[in-house]
């Protein structure tokens, strides 16, 4: 979608007076059936997940996979050499599975390490990072999102998005300074 001046439309955005107003507006937008939209506030707002209808994050599943990978990596790297490839008696301990207590610390550490890496990179990917710029910054007022501004933007790529419907919805929820934000 383009504006008459030829810019690509990124979103229809509005500013709200308070966290409560933003919270109530989010519930209205959720119930109107929009999927591609976001809210911006200077601090986390409790209950916003439910108000936006976000559901449970997939992050925990990714972290679980990372943790299991780490555990298996440690098990293979420890049991492989010391049980099968090059068995050596150290400190009078057996070299088969019964020596597993000595391996637990490494298993624990690699599980934690791989989980942490999985969490770190999954968060970056899920948030679409890294990137140089974001279209929402094309809106002057948005700089207050880190100070005292509460914003809601419905993106143009949402299948339900039409300029008129989005504007009416934002107006009816008490949004101010409603504006079209350009993609570039």
């Amino acid at each position, binding site marked *: 979608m383009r504006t008459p001046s030829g810019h690509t439309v990124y979103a229809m955005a509005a500013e709200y007076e308070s966290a409560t107003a933003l*919270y109530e507006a989010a519930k209205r937008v959720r119930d109107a059936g929009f999927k591609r939209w976001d809210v911006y506030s200077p601090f986390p*707002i*409790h209950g*916003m997940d439910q108000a936006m209808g976000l559901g449970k994050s997939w992050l925990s599943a990714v972290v679980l996979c990372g943790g299991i990978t780490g555990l298996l990596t440690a098990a293979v790297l420890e049991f492989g050499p010391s049980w099968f490839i090059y068995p050596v008696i150290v*400190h009078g*301990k057996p070299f088969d599975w019964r020596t597993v*207590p000595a391996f637990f610390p490494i298993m624990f550490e690699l599980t934690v390490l791989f989980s942490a890496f999985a969490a770190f990179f999954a968060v970056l990917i899920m948030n679409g990072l890294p990137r140089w710029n974001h279209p929402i910054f094309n809106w002057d007022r948005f700089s207050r999102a880190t100070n005292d501004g509460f914003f809601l933007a419905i993106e143009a790529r949402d299948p339900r998005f039409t300029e008129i419907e989005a504007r009416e919805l934002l107006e009816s929820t008490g949004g101010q300074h409603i504006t079209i934000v350009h993609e570039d």
Partner: protein
Amino acid sequence: MSDRSQALPAPEGEFVETSRFGGLSILFALLALVGLGLGVVGAMVDPAQFSFSWLFAFAFFFTLCAGCFFWTLVHHATDADWSVVVRRQLENIASLLAVMAVFLVPVLLLRHHLYGWMNIPPGHEEALDVKRPYLNWHFFLTRAIVFFAFFIIATQLLRRFSVRQDKDGNPRFTFWMRKLSFISLPMFALCLTFGACDWLMSLNYHWFSTMWGVYIFAGTAGSSMSLLVLVITALRNAGYLQDVVTVEHYHVMGKWMLTFTVFWAYIGFSQYMLIWYANMPEETQYFLVRNTESWWALSMLLVVGRFFGPFAILLMQGFKKRPRRLCLLAAWILCMQLLDMYVIVVPALHGTGVHVSIWDFVPLLGMGATLAFVYLRLLGRTSVFPVRDPRVIESINYQN
């Protein structure tokens, strides 16, 4: 912010009608009389077995009560908001430490059956003589009195301030309780650690572990949080706390259960691995007894049942938000705490294998019924949650 922001508690609080539990109270009183009466018989007939059975039951109930005391202290010291609505029950259970002080008396009376070091005169064993400045009867008794004096004074004060705040809602009680908790937290750590060393570790005076106090504490905190889940659910099933405790509070309690499942395993494994790896005779004897013969099966059950099972289950977020399922697991963790205390205490008597005696159950029955009876009496006296706490609304509307 949520849809529940209008939920306001009635200013006078929510009271349990004691008449509803009249029958239950009488039942507990009868069971307590039977249990304690049979206990006297047991102490006459088979004092050696009975003293260990009694200590095992004492350790189990003591850790549960002390754990609830710990959670009260943590609540005040960290100014937590979620735990306001469950705090009164923590205070009620912590107050039972006064009853536990009475139950310590048989341990002191039966000391010669329990603690071998008390029967060895000075000069007979050098390994013991170097420990005499700590391990002697008079100091042992003094410590027990000091520990329980602290437990009783602190729990009674905390409960009294909290109940007085129900009447006038004066925030200064919150500050008093917080100051008391700051002083009490290090005191609690010392009393629990040295209590665990005195009453449990010194069963074998040769053996020592610097992680012993932390190990006992880990089981204490996790199992008492499980007990709290059960108590709160029981109250809710009876029709109380309906609009006060929500699924969000269950989620937090489930998270604490997970935390202390992991912490228990971390400490338990660290203690085991350091001793196993160093392989020094005076340290390994503890695990040699417990990891051989039929004790091996119970030790393995403890490792799997106290850690691997609950850990995998509690990792799931949805599980912690379903009170009924969480209760099943909480009951299981309590059973595992019981097993943990059994594996700590009883092998000191039956070193060659598991030997279950009828006397193992009598003290459990007597102590449990007495504590339940006193708890029901305490429950009816006050509102079931601190209704005028400055943060009670915040706590009711708590969201994760």
